[in-house]
């Protein structure tokens, strides 16, 4: 049932599509290898900036050893822990990268913690919370509440006392997600300090 011209036709069509896809792949591969380093630099710079913001006392950061955390099951995923060193090289605190499940998707945070396990500052690196509601977690009046707090911070609707913070109005899921992230970061640092 296959005439010679049919087979020829099949291969010619197949070859044409192969050519189009192959050329597209080449262009993509070339551009990817050019832009890949630039993107890596961008993400590293962005991360460094936010670490700087959350741990003002430190000027340079170095990856801390996270072996102690491997066996502990934390509520939120920890993507990185960095020691913060000040100008003359002693450790002033830690910057912890943590990501916790928010309302619209993952909220990734940078949490600065000093040696007395107090929060020095937090910064939201990326989120997909609802604009106008959950998205308010990037604002300073919400983030500021965490500064100076220590382990297991609670979220309350309003009138927060000592170790509590006020949730963003009608965005309790996001507020709880951020708080869980911060609590996880503090407990992670506690484990690392005990392991030393």
């Amino acid at each position, binding site marked *: 049932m296959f005439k010679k011209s049919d087979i020829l036709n099949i291969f010619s069509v197949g070859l044409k*599509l192969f050519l189009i*896809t192959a050329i597209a792949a080449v262009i993509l591969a070339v551009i990817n290898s050019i832009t890949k380093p630039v993107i890596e630099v961008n993400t590293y710079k*962005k991360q460094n900036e936010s670490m700087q913001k959350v741990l003002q006392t430190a000027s340079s950061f170095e990856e801390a050893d996270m072996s102690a955390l491997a066996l502990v099951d934390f509520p939120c995923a920890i993507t990185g822990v960095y020691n913060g060193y000040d100008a003359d090289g002693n450790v002033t605190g830690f910057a912890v990268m943590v990501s916790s499940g928010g309302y619209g998707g993952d909220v990734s945070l940078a949490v600065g913690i000093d040696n007395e396990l107090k929060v020095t500052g937090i910064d939201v690196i990326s989120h997909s919370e609802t604009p106008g*509601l959950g998205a308010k977690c990037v604002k300073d009046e919400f983030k500021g509440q965490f500064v100076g707090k220590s382990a297991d911070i609670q979220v309350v609707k309003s009138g927060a006392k000592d170790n509590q913070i006020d949730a963003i109005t009608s965005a309790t899921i996001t507020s709880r997600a951020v708080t869980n992230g911060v609590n996880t970061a503090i407990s992670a640092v506690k484990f690392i300090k005990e392991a030393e």
Partner: protein
Amino acid sequence: MKEKSNNLKIFLNGLITENPTFVQLLGMCPTLAVTTSLKNGIGMGLSATAVLIASNALISLLRKIIPDKVRIAAYIVIIAAFVTIIEMLLNAYLPSLAASLGIFIPLIVVNCIILARAESFASKNTVGKSIIDGLGMGLGFTVALSIISGIREFFGAGTLFDIKIYADIITPPSIIIMAPGGFIVLGIIVAAINYITSKRKAGDN
């Protein structure tokens, strides 16, 4: 002269008479989801326009070579390649815009406008006309997106281009920014356009 007016007609056709968002109601996925702020709306519109022009041009260039049986597959490969290139460039050189456009950059590939224009226009006309059509449709899409996102951002978040207007005075109804707002605002705009065109048509005859 006839050539000139013909091109202008194609351009205006994309911009007003057959506006992809308000008249043809194509490209609904990004239109409803990304238009939460004017910055996003314009960003999305312009990146879609860039892809639309580039893909229209290349597809009309290759229209004789692409066999009809794999027509859709070939067009989608070309569009997908352009979208990935734009995605890489955006991530490398404009990271802030890339963060806010999120998952919608890859979804430009299946944005019905681009494939619809590729199939109904670019595959049948010369490169020059296709580029103009791409530009017209792209700008029509961008204008439509900006109108919708402007209204939604102003009423829903009380800001415009992230500049606070009445956001602190009264808390704006954030439902307009959320999912349902997109549908309702677009529905009202299309109704208004129907009303205007029917008034204008009544005025003509």
